[in-house]
């Protein structure tokens, strides 16, 4: 377990965030912080506001109240987007698109290399390194649509790695993913944190694949119900493993 001292720079911060669709409140006074080198898991049952909060954190939605800071800037004004790696829940890439793993991962480098510039050798090295870090180098020339769900998800994680981000945000990245891909996924996150001292915000309710890596768990259900270490969560009778009183079951009980 890594320490996350208060002196570490805050990469992502939300304070007193409120949001509602019409009169129906979705988020109430949500506070959240991700520091450098910290692995934070944001969990909550379906309809808890996780996706809405994620959209606000990424600048796709404006909160009704509260402040969000991404690397110290308002998300919609933040320009150094390469510092943020993002893995969406369901990439919209259609299976018939004849794009290789390498082509997909290369697109992840554009925010850093400059989308208008030709790729230089360091850019190609970064792409190769990102593919290696998720264990897909033997499949780099394969069409993404021909890969398994887990392998596809690793390709999209590699796309997020390609810009060598300081903060990685992942939305339900291991949903429906095979055990081998979950292990690779966990290894690659460890690698990113160790190599780049990056922060990670993982939105999920399936944490068994990364249970040993998580520094802090935030449980959301409209408001933050818990924010602390996995050990503190365990003391409340919840483990992150796959035992009877595991997190998914506990989250279901929160509805």
């Amino acid at each position, binding site marked *: 377990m890594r320490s996350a001292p208060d002196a570490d720079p805050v990469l992502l911060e939300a304070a007193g965030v409120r949001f509602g669709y019409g009169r129906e409140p979705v988020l109430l006074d949500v506070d959240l912080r991700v520091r450098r080198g910290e692995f934070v898991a944001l969990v909550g049952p379906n309809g808890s506001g996780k996706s809405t909060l994620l959209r606000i954190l*990424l600048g*796709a939605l404006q909160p009704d109240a509260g402040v969000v800071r991404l690397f110290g800037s308002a998300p919609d004004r933040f*320009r150094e*987007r*390469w510092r*943020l790696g*993002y893995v*969406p829940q369901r*990439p*919209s*890439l*259609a299976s*018939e*698109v*004849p*794009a*290789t793993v390498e*082509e*997909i991962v*290369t*697109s*992840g480098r*554009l*925010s850093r290399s400059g*989308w*208008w510039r030709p*790729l230089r050798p360091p850019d190609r090295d970064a792409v190769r390194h990102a593919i290696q870090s998720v264990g897909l180098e033997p499949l780099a*020339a*394969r*069409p993404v649509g*021909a890969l398994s769900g887990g392998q596809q998800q690793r390709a999209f994680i590699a*796309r997020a790695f390609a*810009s060598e981000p300081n903060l990685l945000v992942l939305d339900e990245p291991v949903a429906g993913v095979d055990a081998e891909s979950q292990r690779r996924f966990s290894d690659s996150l460890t690698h990113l944190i160790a190599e780049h001292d990056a922060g990670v915000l993982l939105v999920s309710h399936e944490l068994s694949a990364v249970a040993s890596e998580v520094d802090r768990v935030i449980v959301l259900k409209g408001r933050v119900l818990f924010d602390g270490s996995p050990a503190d969560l365990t003391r409340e009778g919840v483990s992150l493993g796959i035992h009877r009183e595991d997190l998914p079951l506990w989250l279901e009980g929160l509805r």
Partner: protein
Amino acid sequence: MIALWLPYPFDLPFMQRALAAGLVVGVFAPMIGTFLVQKRLSLIGDGIGHVAFAGVGAGLLLGVNPVLSALVFAVVGALGVDRLRARRKASGDVALALFFYSGIALGVVFASLGGGLNASILTYLFGQPLTVTRSEIAAIFALGAAIAIVMWTLRRVLFAVVTDEDWSRVAGLPVDAMNAVLAVLTAVAVVAAMRIVGILLIAALMVLPVATAQLLSRSFRSTLLLSVAVGVASVVVGLTASFVFDIAASGAMVLATAAVFAVVSIGKRAAPRTLRQEEHA
């Protein structure tokens, strides 16, 4: 002038002119189509073509060069469709239908005001490469070169945007600008090709070569290059068939493209199972 050693029927000057213009269209139409198909906008070329038809009608009515007036109408129409889609005020197909029908109706009205449909309007609707002039070839080359240079320069960011728009936005890529660039390039391509393949058939040359290439390709890059190869081959076969069988050249080119797709599609299904398994191994 073009080399004289070209084989029959391209030893004839008018066939050489048709070939020169056709080859350029055969390159840039599938090139832009490769991006449109990934964006699920296969028919946008058709919709923009109908808006361009209004421009042709306006040009003929006002005595302005129809290519210029069509270019203005097509670019404005393409940006309009793109804005409607972006603001989600209308779904992609409804936005297309709105411009599609308004464009064709406006073209018919302009044509009626100008004395009814005439042969020159039919030339733009269905294309007539065998009568293309040197100045028209020069315009097609210029527009085609502009399209190819812009697309090749922006291919990586366009690829990112057309394959995963939501992610591209989070990554800070210029999604709206690239969508607008793609819309404008499509409009320019429609107008550049209308004299050769016709407003009503240009979308086929944008889409069918790409559909064929996707059956055989394993990467976006190879899809792009193979679709251009199919487009060029279809132009050559279509022009030859047009001369030999005395049939409409634009129709023959599109039918050649469709035939290539059918042959590849059937051939792929008929390929030995082991071969297909190796392909995916």
